[in-house]
């Protein structure tokens, strides 16, 4: 084998490695962007729910004023969740809101006038939809986090990931693992 040929082989191998590195890098960037988009979507939907809570409380108050304790509890959970805008504290506060909202809707069951009112029905639809959108956004986010973490953790892509400072992300977990139908679906 001549020296010239060996040079070509080495150059070819280096080129292939460079192409692979570019591919891995692009994939990492794409996944990171999807994780970020997923997180932004969760944020949008959580905010939407924070906005709905005062409306719902007001509507229920009109019919069941004596449930004051429950209203305050929901309001406190909401305030805590808005404060804790990062993953570790946030999922606990969110679960609290979910529990409070479920009780709020359960209370409404006892008041036929309230249950039949148009404002309440519209709010209930929005709340149900927002709950399921949060769940779907979480599902998408966790899916993308898993893909990113798998790529970052697997050899040899991990070399590229480390060189460019890609870090594994944290999952966003929830209370009830078996998310079947939307949690507060009372409309059937």
């Amino acid at each position: 084998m001549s020296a010239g040929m060996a040079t070509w082989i080495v150059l070819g191998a280096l080129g292939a490695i460079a192409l692979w590195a570019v591919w891995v890098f692009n994939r990492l960037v794409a996944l990171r962007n999807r994780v970020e988009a997923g997180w932004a979507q969760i944020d949008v939907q959580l905010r939407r729910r924070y906005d709905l809570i005062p409306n719902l409380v007001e509507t229920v108050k009109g019919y069941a004023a004596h449930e004051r304790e429950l209203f305050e509890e929901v309001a406190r959970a909401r305030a805590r969740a808005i404060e804790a805008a990062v993953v570790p504290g946030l999922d606990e506060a969110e679960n609290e809101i979910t529990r409070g909202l479920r009780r709020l809707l359960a209370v409404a069951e006892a008041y036929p006038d309230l249950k039949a009112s148009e404002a309440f029905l519209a709010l209930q639809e929005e709340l149900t939809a927002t709950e399921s959108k949060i769940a779907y956004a979480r599902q998408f986010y966790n899916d993308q986090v898993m893909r990113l973490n798998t790529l970052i953790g697997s050899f040899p892509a991990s070399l590229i990931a480390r060189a460019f400072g890609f870090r594994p992300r944290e999952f966003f977990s929830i209370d009830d693992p078996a998310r079947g139908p939307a949690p507060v679906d009372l409309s059937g």
Partner: protein
Amino acid sequence: MYEQIAANKRRTALLVLGAVVFLGLVGYAIGRLLEAGPLGLALALGLAAAMSLGSYYGGDRIVLASARAREVSREEEPRLHNIVEGLAIAAGVPKPRVYIVPERAPNAFATGRDPEHASIAVTQGLLETMNRVELEGVIAHEMAHIVDRDILVGTVVATLVGAAVLLSEFFLRTWWWGGVGRRRGDERGGGPVELVLFAIGLVMLILAPIVAQIIRLAVSRNREFLADAEGALLTRYPPGLASALRKIAAASGIPMRSANNATAHLWLAQPSRVEGERMGLLERLFQTHPPIEERIRRLEEM
């Protein structure tokens, strides 16, 4: 999933190429018969190009119009809009446009060329008979078709086949009315033009079963199973779609006036224009869906 997308793009390119070659040949033959030389070929190729571009960029509008679908706002149908938006979030695609088809039979379809230009249409009957969980199952199935680009193949097939059906009817009718005029003693009839028109119409009529076969090849039954499975993956709740399919099977006697052979493959479940359980002769020929019982069984096993 990525192989699925690539395969669908390849299939669409093949279909368009096939249509161009076929129309080119027909145009060339007409040109030869009428002694117009390459003019026929040029015209046919122009027509084929226009049809292909039209079906790629405007196919969704044609399909929606042929189903007499009407776009609905969030205020009109908050529940439907919310479900579509939720599943778009789950699939990580932009929210498709939402349409309603004025039909009593419960059914749905998706169309468009990619997730950025997609529409989901459901019938009035579907909205009235399904609860939220079942609706989510149906929309998730359609969302899977959107993500996999099944909608691209399906829409291009629908518009190309639709155009072929229209053309064949046009040719046959032109010949028929020309023929009637001749029988009334008009001496100009019987020329090569009418003969050619008749021949094309006849050929297209004979081609119908072949076209049906092409549709079956392009939109294989497997992808319905696949969309069922991927939809279930989105909702994480297979019984939702299973229950919806059971309701659709129970309502299979209700005819769908706006369905036709060119668009039948797009629908969630095989539509029929015939009242009752049975289907028309041509409709059976164009049957593109796996039996609904089999789909329910597979969903139940997940």
